[in-house]
């Protein structure tokens, strides 16, 4: 019999039971909540007279709706100008208070984007099942956990039963061999993967990211990659546990301590795919061939190296793809054959659950240090992923570098990633963004998003258009 994949092991360890038709009850170890997808779930519990099954597995924080300027934040929830947003944040506070769920409220230094907060707190650990009413929950798979996004009905289901009804996915291995070139980051790696796999290529699969590139990668880099597994269609992305994982987890507030820690570390040693494990699908990339990536269209798979040209739909043989390309070019206001480095930018956004951790901020700061943001830019925002990331960045003086270069230094939250708060793109504005989705209108009505790494966003902020960060300066 073939060995087990990491996904098989995580699945088997959480299987409560299996029905005849293959649908399974899977036990959930950690449930993260935020204000957007939970109100209707709590309401459902109340209506049915149900109680949460296990309070201690739940952890909540508001992120999508919170304003990110200091003045607004100083006023707490009352600083949220938009009344509908305000109600949503207050509703989360009330629900957590009523049910006794731990919540890092808006004024708490530990507040932040839920996918930054979980790992930072040690609340998401190797070997856990982690769910959240948010598709970017795949981020936590970087810890060697089985993590995926769920809908609001499932949020209610997890609250009430600690389980989910699931069907097992197939196994996919995305292996990136060799070494990355100078200046290439985890974001370029995942964008290049999506360019190859496509936005639907991972549908029905749990993806494990393996190979030397991921072995060498930091935990934060692995989180960036797993974060975007969903952009390749897979609910689950994960990386095997190694010493890097264990070093990262050690000493965090929610991590096990003492004898419990030793026991946990021993158990985590098995959290990798067996050498003879079989995958249903394998994709292999060569790390050395990956260049800095920029998306030109309205889907993350519409991505190219920065030195390339905007593609020509006339060259595309697949009709449905060609018509998507025509539509994307029209929406993005680009013409086929135009150099990507000629795309002029209006705004730059460095933040989101993909790229708002300390390493991301360090990378961006290193690029802008001693430069000035291009005069043609309307705005360049840096939004740390959590209050603790912000404090760390300030302790290192990164905020001064950003401010001196003309970027705005903000309070933690989702910010311009999806424009549910006051930070948005104007219609037809181009934005170099470190977030994960370039869908039409994602960052604001009519807004045009280009996904890039933090270093590429920083270089673009200085130049006013895209530049190859490897030759910048």
């Amino acid at each position: 019999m073939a060995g087990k994949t990491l996904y098989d092991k995580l699945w088997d360890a959480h299987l409560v039971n299996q029905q005849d038709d293959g649908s399974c009850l899977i036990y959930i170890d950690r449930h993260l909540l935020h204000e957007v997808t939970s109100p209707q779930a709590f309401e459902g519990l109340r209506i049915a007279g149900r109680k949460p099954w296990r309070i201690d597995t739940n952890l909540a924080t508001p992120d999508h709706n919170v304003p990110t300027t200091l003045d607004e934040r100083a006023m707490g929830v009352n600083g949220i100008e938009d009344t509908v947003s305000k109600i949503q944040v207050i509703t989360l506070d009330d629900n957590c208070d009523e049910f006794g769920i731990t919540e890092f409220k808006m004024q708490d230094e530990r507040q932040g984007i839920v996918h930054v907060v979980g790992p930072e707190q040690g609340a998401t650990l190797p070997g856990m099942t982690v769910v959240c009413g948010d598709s970017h929950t795949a981020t936590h798979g970087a810890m060697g956990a089985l993590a995926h996004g769920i809908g609001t009905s499932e949020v209610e289901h997890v609250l009430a039963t600690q389980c989910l009804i699931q069907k097992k996915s197939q196994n996919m291995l995305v292996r990136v061999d060799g070494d990355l070139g100078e200046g290439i980051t985890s974001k370029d790696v995942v964008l290049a993967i999506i360019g190859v796999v496509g936005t639907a290529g991972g549908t029905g699969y749990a993806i494990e990211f393996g190979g030397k590139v991921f072995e060498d990668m930091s935990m934060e880099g692995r989180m960036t990659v797993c974060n975007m597994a969903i952009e390749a269609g897979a609910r689950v992305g994960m990386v095997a546990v190694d010493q890097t994982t264990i070093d990262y987890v050690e000493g965090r507030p929610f991590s096990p301590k003492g004898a419990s820690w030793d026991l946990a570390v021993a158990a985590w040693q098995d959290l990798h795919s067996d050498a003879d494990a079989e995958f249903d699908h394998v994709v292999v990339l060569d790390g050395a061939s990956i260049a800095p990536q920029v998306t030109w269209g309205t889907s993350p798979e519409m991505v190219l190296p920065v030195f390339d040209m905007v593609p020509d739909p006339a060259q595309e043989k697949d009709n449905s793809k060609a018509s998507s390309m025509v539509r994307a070019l029209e929406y993005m206001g680009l013409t086929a054959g135009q150099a990507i480095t000629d795309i002029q930018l209006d705004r730059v956004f460095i933040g989101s659950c993909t790229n708002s951790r300390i390493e991301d901020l360090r990378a961006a700061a290193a690029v802008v240090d001693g430069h000035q943001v291009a005069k043609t830019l309307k705005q360049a925002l840096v939004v740390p992923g959590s209050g603790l990331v912000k404090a760390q960045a300030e302790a290192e003086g990164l905020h001064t570098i950003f401010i001196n270069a003309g970027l705005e230094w903000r309070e933690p939250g989702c910010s311009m990633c999806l424009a549910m708060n006051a930070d948005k793109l104007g219609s037809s504005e181009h934005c170099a963004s470190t977030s994960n989705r370039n869908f039409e209108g994602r960052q604001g009505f009519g807004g045009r998003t280009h996904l890039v790494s933090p270093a590429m966003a920083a270089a673009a902020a200085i130049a006013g258009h895209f530049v190859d960060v490897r030759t910048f300066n």
Partner: protein
Amino acid sequence: MQAFTQLTGITVPLDRANVDTDMIIPKQFLKSIKRSGFGPNLFDQLRYLDEGQPDQDSSKRPINPDFVLNFPRYKGAKILLSRGNFGCGSSREHAPWALLDFGISCVIAPSFADIFYNNCFKNGILPITLLDEQVDQLFADTQAKEGFELTIDLDAGVICGSSAGDIAFSIDSFRRHCLLHGLDDIGLTLEHTASIKSYEQKRQKQAPWLFN
């Protein structure tokens, strides 16, 4: 949850691949703490010419006459026909809520994104996966005849009304059962309380650090 047995209705063709949930219901409408009222904002960016806001009376807004949902011939549609990877992107359950609130309780496409597909069943929406050729045929049918209707019979697993004859489809048996009877998942799972408790006891011994 409303049971889904049979459905007959006008079929509206949305000829786009990768329809994402941001498109189905833009983020400004996710601020609601209710499950209903999303219908007027289904496909908001495509349906209207202005930028929609929550708490706005959408009946007074300028509509986009070029968007298929606004064509008079598809008024009152109950079935949505689209292309591959339908429902990709965000996990927002507001997307099926918006479809349902608008009156659409069946979506037909060559493929669906996982989370969206799953969310449909929790809300009494039937997502049907067909082959590309079959979807092409249905697109041709909607174009050919004004007022074109399909009948979906979940129990029998067939779609009737296409000019090319009946089309069979399959849905996994558990989901089909729940949909046919309008069953609430939570109630079903709580019938397994004993198994869940025994799993917890076993797990607590193996991995005590997961239990505080």
